[in-house]
């Protein structure tokens, strides 16, 4: 994985995660997706934010302090989760066998395992 690939992937993640999160907040706040769909969105945001928490320190090595930057992502994700909690009673209940939910759950688990290795 070359430095260029790392930078491109991190850049995509850095833009994609907040875009995904803001879209999720807007959708969960203004519309009524199923709970499973809304939860999948938030789990995806958490996976992306956790992954950024691992890669940002390495990518920004010698350049910027990753903490305040990552804090912005984390605040957005916590906001999305809070909105989900707030809207939960109002959301429609769908099927728990939701493909998006399965994918984001696995993604979050994988990222947390990787992050666990990275930070311990």
């Amino acid at each position, binding site marked *: 994985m070359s430095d260029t690939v790392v930078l491109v992937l991190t850049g995509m993640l850095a833009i994609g995660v907040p875009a995904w999160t803001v879209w999720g907040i807007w959708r969960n706040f203004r519309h009524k997706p199923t709970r499973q769909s809304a939860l999948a969105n938030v789990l995806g945001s958490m996976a992306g934010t956790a992954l950024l928490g691992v890669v940002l320190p390495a990518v920004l*090595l010698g350049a910027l302090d990753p*903490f305040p930057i*990552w804090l912005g992502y984390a605040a957005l994700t916590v906001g999305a989760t809070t909105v989900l*909690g707030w809207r939960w009673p109002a959301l429609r209940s769908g099927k728990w066998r939701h493909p998006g939910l399965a994918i984001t759950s696995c993604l979050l688990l994988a990222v947390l395992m990787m992050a666990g290795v990275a930070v311990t």
Partner: protein
Amino acid sequence: MAAVRDDGQREESSRYQGSAPLPVMSRRALLAAGAGLSAAGLLALVGPHPVSPASGRTGDPALLARAEPHLRGLNRVALAYLHGDTTTYAGIGADERTLFGIGSLSKTFCGAVLMDMVLKEEVTLDTTVGDLIDADQSDLADVTLQELASHTSGLPDFTPTQTRSRNLWFGLLHADGARQDAADTVIDILGQRLKGRGTFSYSTAGIALLAHLLGRRAGTTYKKLLAQRILTPLDLTDTSLPVTRAGLPRGWEKGLLGGRPAEPWTLNGLAPGGGMWSTCADIATWMRLTRDGHQPGAAGLQPVAPAPILPWMPDAKVAITWILATTPGGEDLIFHNGLTGSHSSFVGYCPRTGRGLAYLVNSAPTGAQLLMLQGDLVKTLLDEGA
């Protein structure tokens, strides 16, 4: 009406009708707060942390008072100030015996081994790679040891294999990741194409190749050669070259990456270019020996090529591993610094005034901190004096 809420529309209308709004609000607030706190807690477990100064101050209070304004945002720092024959130490959460990874300062030790072998006529600066190893198929066959030692060989900083390893292991997993031993490293580097030969292009791979070639010429490993020629004779007892994690010195501690403890960069085959560990006391001795011409590497301090470090040091030049530049106050400065994922270092002295500064830090500084350390701190201590 408030007990089952799977239809948001009915819930909204019930609230406005004034029927039992408090339990609904309380439940929603509890859910929202619980979800938000859970997410915050989970993310806090895996995300970066702010870096704050470690407790405990050591060494000379006057030196620390001069230096501390320029050490903001660092966790553990050990620094040494050299003036004439006097060396003064100060530290935050560390002292002159605390072990740190010194990163690319390791390169100056490789330069010293080279110059020792030049002085003993075992090699010359014009000895080529092809003179020391079968390199007929390599672009590097006629590259000289001086080119390797002065970063003018045209080699990249790291080979693609080494970059991949660094990004995947050190970057993604913050883990020990150097898989190439010395032999694999040499083969990998000999397979590289050269680009911009003759001009300065910083190369850790080039120094690693130089080190292994010197070891080969002496009929031993570079690690043993370094100990025999430099570390033992100069009594640098707390300085070592751990090639793998198992070789880390007793008492080593993890540095910080993103405010969290991170695996040290034990670089295996690349270790001669950035894998050494030392203490501030040993590094101060190294600086004094270099300044006073008492270590072999001091014979290699003549400029070899321009090495502009933009935008701060446009007139810098490279010698045998050392960089020749000027302080913010315009004094000639001979220095080298080092940076790993979790440690950083600096050694620099002014030949005219005899002042020198060395610092070791247990984290990689940000760009702003680097300016503070190599700009403000250097100005304060080397231009103005402690």
